[in-house]
């Protein structure tokens, strides 16, 4: 009995140590266990597909015959970068993105400033401005195709009514891209406006009162107080609008199919065309990687240029 007690007491510190070591390990592992579900989800639907598309982009392959994949190295990229059509696609995408983002954010900012005042019609205007956001892009596109119809469309009828010549809208290489910009801006303005209004309403009123006592003019107040205070909102919209403009697809697919003469073809539609219409999987994959790279670069650029100008409270 005496012996057993002695042995037990000698073992006790060892046991405690072991438990402590195990607990220490668990503490280290625990955070990873917590994020594991999210990590698995992201890996399955995000990281692995990205790696896989990069892998696919160095092969010549077609959806029709997946058995015959031929390693071609950087050839797909070289082909794309030397292709005049692809240059046009890149240019279209850039122009479309810049125009949509600038107009979409600019207009919604002005609208939000106007709607943020106590006016009678605010609720009605807010609801009608926001409604395009909840309609499917396909329906929106169909609607605008009718509006922009050169012969029977409402827009030309209006132009004619006020004595202006009819416009070519989607039928001309010069005006088609602009018409798509118009549709996208119309669609995005409502959402942006709501986000801006939320931002405006979170600015403390006493800042404006302090500014009034500081003899700040309306322009000064806008430039020195409202815009800096809205910078996180502005930045958020800039990033999300840029990314979604880069990924425009539905409107092109329904309204123009990239035409006339490739004038409205943009990256995502081009990828779809290469992969699904021409069965050129390798080129489509390489173009996808380029899209990913461009969006990534732009986002990094935005973050870098805005890092000092965005004020987070």
């Amino acid at each position, binding site marked *: 009995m005496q012996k057993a007690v002695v042995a037990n007491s000698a073992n006790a510190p060892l046991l405690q140590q072991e438990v402590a070591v195990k607990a220490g390990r668990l503490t280290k592992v625990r955070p990873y266990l917590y994020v594991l579900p999210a990590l698995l989800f992201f890996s399955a639907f995000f990281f692995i597909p990205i790696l896989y598309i990069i892998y696919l982009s160095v092969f010549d392959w077609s959806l029709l015959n997946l058995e015959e994949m031929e390693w071609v190295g950087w050839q797909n990229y070289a082909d794309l970068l030397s292709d005049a059509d692809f240059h046009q696609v890149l240019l279209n995408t850039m122009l479309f993105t810049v125009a949509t983002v600038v107009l979409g954010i600019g207009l919604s900012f002005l609208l939000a400033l106007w709607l943020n005042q106590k006016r009678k019609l605010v609720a009605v205007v807010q609801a009608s401005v926001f409604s395009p956001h909840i309609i499917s892009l396909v329906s929106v596109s169909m609607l605008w195709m009718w509006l922009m119809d050169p012969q029977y469309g409402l827009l030309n009828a209006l132009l004619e009514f006020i004595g202006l010549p009819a416009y070519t809208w989607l039928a001309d290489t010069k005006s088609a891209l602009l018409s798509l910009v118009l549709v996208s801006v119309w669609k995005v303005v409502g959402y942006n406006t709501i986000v801006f209004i939320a931002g405006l309403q979170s600015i*403390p009123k*006493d*800042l404006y*009162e*302090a500014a009034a*006592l*500081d003899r*700040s*003019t309306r322009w000064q107040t806008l430039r020195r107080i409202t815009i*800096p205070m809205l910078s996180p909102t502005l930045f958020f919209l800039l990033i999300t609008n840029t990314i979604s403009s880069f990924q425009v697809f539905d409107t092109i697919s329904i309204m123009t199919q990239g035409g006339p003469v490739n004038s409205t073809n943009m990256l995502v539609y081009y990828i779809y065309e290469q992969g699904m219409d021409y069965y050129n999987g390798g080129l489509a994959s390489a173009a996808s990687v380029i899209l990913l790279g461009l969006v990534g670069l732009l986002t990094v650029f935005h973050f870098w240029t805005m890092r000092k100008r965005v004020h987070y409270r």
Partner: protein
Amino acid sequence: MQQVVKKYNNQTVVKGLDLVIPDGSFTVLVGPSGCGKSTTLRMIAGLEEITAGDLLIDGQRVNDLAPGKRDVAMVFQNYALYPTMNVFDNIAFGLLNRGFSKKDCKRMVEEIAEIVGLSSYLQRKPAELSGGQRQRVALARAMVKKPRVFLMDEPLSNLDAKLRNQMRVELTSLHKQLGTTFIYVTHDQVEAMTMGDQIVVMNEGEIMQKASPFELYQQPANLFVAQFIGSPAMNILPTDKESIGFRPEKAMLTAGSARTIQPAAGFVDHGRIVAREILGSDVLYYVSGRAGKIIARKAADELLAEGTEVTVSVAAEHLYRFDQETGRALSVAAIKQESLPSGGLG
């Protein structure tokens, strides 16, 4: 202010205010929440439209003058510093808008920063400052404009107790130094009593009394002021026609129910101590008497235990009388024996 009225959607929050604020005074508007004191201040600043009446500064009607043109500066409760600007820009913003050159601005900002002790913080953003430092920036921003009137809307309420006491002293000495008119809004009677040379007590959009701190305490014009000013509040004991009142520190407490009290006592009651609070130098006794609940404040030299039977007596010159209906103060000399509660006169 002449018959100044403020209405929000048919609800009158300031009811015909007549008030003269002497040049160079430290006037405190004090009252419970919702009494209209902040609204009054904001009307003076031009941040609220005046529904009716006239607001004159130096004899000039300023009802329709933009806030920036009234030559007033305001310190807000939450300081309202521009979060995106650093301390320098916060102070300089008003100066630049007033047309000062950048060089003059720099000199003036640096001078004022020196005075309030912010020189080494000029490049920091408000978020990087402590509550007290932000308070100083707000003060500096107001001071640098050299206004005719300083308006302060509960500027100390966001500070901790120690810093609040310190800033109270600093603000009063700042007022003496500058000699400018200060109008200060607070709900804290201690702030009002210690800082103001003229106190305006407000309730439900009306002025209850305007007086110096001493007068306000010694000669409250009505029941509201009597109970609002002083901590703990004045004891009020209702009778048939009027209410009588006395300050807790004026009540004499004698252990036992024997009528061994001073002959000049104007009020006597017997009761039992139901609770006591030891504040350090003083003790508050809560006495349940025949006339009602009474609070007495005594020096903590000797303590009376809870449950002790006591006699409460108050000298006649320390009694106040108020009209039961209007709450207005009646003259002290006119106390009648029969009007007293069951305690009775000595």
